């Protein structure tokens, strides 16, 4: 799989993907990267005012940066997107340490999966709900969608009212796990 391997530990980046996936990429990075002095069959092409693509093993892959915030990236390749955090070996160690140290949160947030309007709220604060229970009805693209809870718990806070408009990823309500 990951054939782009590090030559020296100091000069590398670690791209952390979802589900603890780890990609080690050696420096220096260029459009035509080398591994152990050998050129890879890989080339990045960025057309001015056009598409960006990677040529890998004589195949073209359309790539695009969808989001970028400091070292956090969302990259789209052939229409599919993946999220990464780019770390240096030192910051990677720190990240691992923090992950171990942080206590797992008991608060679960229910986010709006798409922009839309809240038509109905089916729960009240301090009520117990179970996984799969509908919490709100969200109207988007003229369709009504049931937003369901993905955990068992107690509704801690409701952040919206009926007829509110929400954006994608807005926190609709918070549930305390039980």
């Amino acid at each position, binding site marked *: 799989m990951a054939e782009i391997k590090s030559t020296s530990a100091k000069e590398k980046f670690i791209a952390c993907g979802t589900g603890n996936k780890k990609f080690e990429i050696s420096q220096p990075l260029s459009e035509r990267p080398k591994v152990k002095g050998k050129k890879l069959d890989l080339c990045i092409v960025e057309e001015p005012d056009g598409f960006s693509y990677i040529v890998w093993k004589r195949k073209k892959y359309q790539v695009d940066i969808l989001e970028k915030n400091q070292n956090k990236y969302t990259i789209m390749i*052939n229409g599919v997107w993946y999220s990464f955090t780019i770390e240096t070996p030192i910051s990677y160690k720190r990240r691992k340490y923090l992950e171990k140290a942080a206590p797992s949160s008991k608060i679960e947030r229910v986010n709006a999966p798409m922009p839309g309007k809240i038509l109905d709220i089916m729960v009240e604060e301090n009520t117990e709900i179970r996984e799969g229970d509908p919490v709100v009805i969200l109207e988007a693209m003229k369709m009504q969608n049931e937003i369901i809870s993905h955990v068992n718990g107690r509704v801690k806070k409701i952040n919206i009212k009926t007829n509110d408009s929400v954006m994608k990823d807005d926190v609709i309500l918070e549930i305390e796990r039980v």
Partner: protein
Amino acid sequence: MIKSLLVANRGEIAVRIMKTASAMGIETWAIKTSREPNAWYLSHADKIIDISEEFEDIPIFLDVEKLIEITLKNKINAIHPGYGFLAESPFFAERCEQNRIIFIGPSPDAIYKMGNKTIAKQLARKHNVPLLQGSLGTVMNIKEAREVAGMIGYPVILKAAAGGGGRGMRIVEKEGEMEKMFRIAGSEAEKAFNDSSLFIEKYVRNPRHIEFQILGDKIGNIIHLGERECSIQRKHQKLIEESPSPALDEKLRKKMGEAAVNIARSVNYYSAGTVEFLLDDRNNFYFMEMNTRIQVEHPVTEMITGIDLVEWQIRIAMGEELPMSQEDITYKGWAFEFRVNAEDVQAGFSPSLGIIEKISYPKSKNIRIDTGVKQGSIITPYYDSMIAKLIVHGENREKAILYSSNALKKFWIKGLKTTIPFCMAVLANKNFRNGKFDTSFLTTEMKLNIREDPEEEMLAAFFAAYDYARDLKLEEEKCVNFEKGKAITPWLLNKRLKSI
């Protein structure tokens, strides 16, 4: 004779209609609106009616009297409504007739009868077309809904009497869900069609969705142009269609085709229309509804029959007789249609609005692209999220799948998330390739909606690191040279200056 034609629609279907009308020597008219004054469809019209400066009380494409007024004022012969908007409004068709404007579509009577699901079912019953058990008319309240559902047995489906397109439609698995679902379906129907009345039907679990293309003239000739397989759907919204269907053989095609023609005949249907059926796993089929318009997925039928449906809609409207009989219709090869929508399939198909920064289509003689956008077009929340329809033809299903996969790989869009990776993932699915699928395909076979490719993910990781490294380098270049060639950042310099 039709000399001029107003297309009372927008987007890809407006382009599609104007292309054929222009080829027939008809002058085409389009409407420029304030919501999308730079839309691509406008560039295909001979004449443009500009209302972009006017205040629109309701969208022009839904404004019957305004459309009649501008048609008369500009002395235009005919109106093509496309699909959606006023395409299935019997009132609009009638207002056209009253004003001696040729409406490209069926009679107001046929639109009315097929648009009213209760009447449509009565007609089907009368003509011995198989139907699903259900309420005889609309159900008034939850109590009545419970009684009817109890009689025919759960699961049942609630449908808007005036509906279509999946809106106002809800499945009820057990009695306990009836109250909630009745409320949701009713309010959805009220919003979408201004009519909250619902009816109940027995729900067939995991059927196939098969529809037949109908063509009829004003003399009374009615034929069908074969079926379309539309089982790849999400929440009743079609995503991939094909023709023919891998589920039908010649015998079943003949039987269902005859039933479809009978339905059309019951309302003296003329123009193009579509009869929708559900097909269960034992090849029993049930009439669902008739759509009295051109369908989004009509190109797959055109690809395998070689018949231009819009051309025949116009010819029939002018009173021409169909020169071909049922025996003359032959099917060549296999065709797929992929709906490329601006949707994020990895986030539950949520709309991905924005600007098309760059677009590049696959090109080949067996590929057809129907689109209403170009580079720089904006996908707005006002209309649907369709970017384009990719239609691919092959000598057989296997070849058509192969050509489609290659075409999807060459279909590049920058600036938006699209359904292209979803379409690729469906084509890679074994059961889909074997033709073994039904309307449950998305929920049972497509857990991820995309196909994760470790190699692609690795390349994406590399690209992110490459961009990050480049940014770091730019940052370093900004540094001030200080202290015997040692680089120092302006930030640190500032701090040091302060502490002096």
